[in-house]
């Protein structure tokens, strides 16, 4: 605390130390919270096509189209250490080639000030449901699950799986008409 600049430096350094402690307190106050909650998912329309995937190998692969309903309330997940949620819908299924396939079909960023009570009816997927072969045709167990990343001010970036999922099956025949 000898000169003008040294006093300013000491003050700034101490303030930043206190800020680090406060941030840690914010992290500790939320690290043990349970961020899981219930979700209702259901499929409305399921269409299966077999068309060339020009973005990859030009081979004809299975492409699923589906519309779905989604209801959940994520309002209570927000607190002073949650800036936003990254919500995404994943399809999981098994094929002869792969024990586990996971395809992200839809996602949404929910900021804290936005409406977190989701109620979607008959919405399209955001991303293509491509299989890397013919694994979707007649597949009897495709499971849709909703998950979310919590983007915090400080601390971990947890990946939470919602309670509740929806299973459906693809038809055994390809749709040839335009959709």
């Amino acid at each position, binding site marked *: *605390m*000898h*000169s*003008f600049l040294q*006093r*300013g430096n*000491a*003050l*700034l350094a*101490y*303030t930043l130390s*206190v*800020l680090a*402690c*406060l*941030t840690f*307190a*914010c992290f500790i*106050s939320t690290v043990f919270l349970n961020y899981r909650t219930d979700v209702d998912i259901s499929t409305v329309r399921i269409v299966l096509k077999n068309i060339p995937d020009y973005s990859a190998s030009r081979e004809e692969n299975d492409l699923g189209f589906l519309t779905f309903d989604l209801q959940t309330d994520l309002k209570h997940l927000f*607190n*002073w*250490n949650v800036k936003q949620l990254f919500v995404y819908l994943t399809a999981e299924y098994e094929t002869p080639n792969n024990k586990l396939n996971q395809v992200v079909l839809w996602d949404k960023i929910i900021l804290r000030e936005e409406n977190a009570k989701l109620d979607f009816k008959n919405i399209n997927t955001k991303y293509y449901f491509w299989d890397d072969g013919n694994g979707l045709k007649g597949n009897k167990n495709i499971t849709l699950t909703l998950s979310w990343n919590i983007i915090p*001010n400080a601390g971990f970036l947890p990946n939470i799986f919602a309670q509740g999922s929806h299973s459906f099956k693809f038809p055994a025949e390809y749709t040839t008409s335009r959709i």
Partner: protein
Amino acid sequence: MFKFIDNWHMDFVGQAWAEKLSRIIITLFGAIGLVYGYALQQFSMTVYILGAGFALASLLTIPPWPMYRKNPLNWQPVKNKDKDNSSKKAKKISDYALDEISFNISSY
């Protein structure tokens, strides 16, 4: 008007006070910010309140206000040691150096 700024230094007692006061202010504002931010569930409030504490502490403890200059050191007057003119320059310098550090520290 700002005559006390002609020298930006505090005395030693003033320095100790300034440091203690700045620590108290920033810690207090940090604690208030933590409670208020938790109550509002808004961490930005915590950061803003800590920032206000920083501004207040900067204003109160960085400039050498008169309250930090009440205990100046009592320096001994410079003694004139020009009796021995034949002595070498190096000797003279060391004598002056000795004089400089022999201030009366017990006076504060």
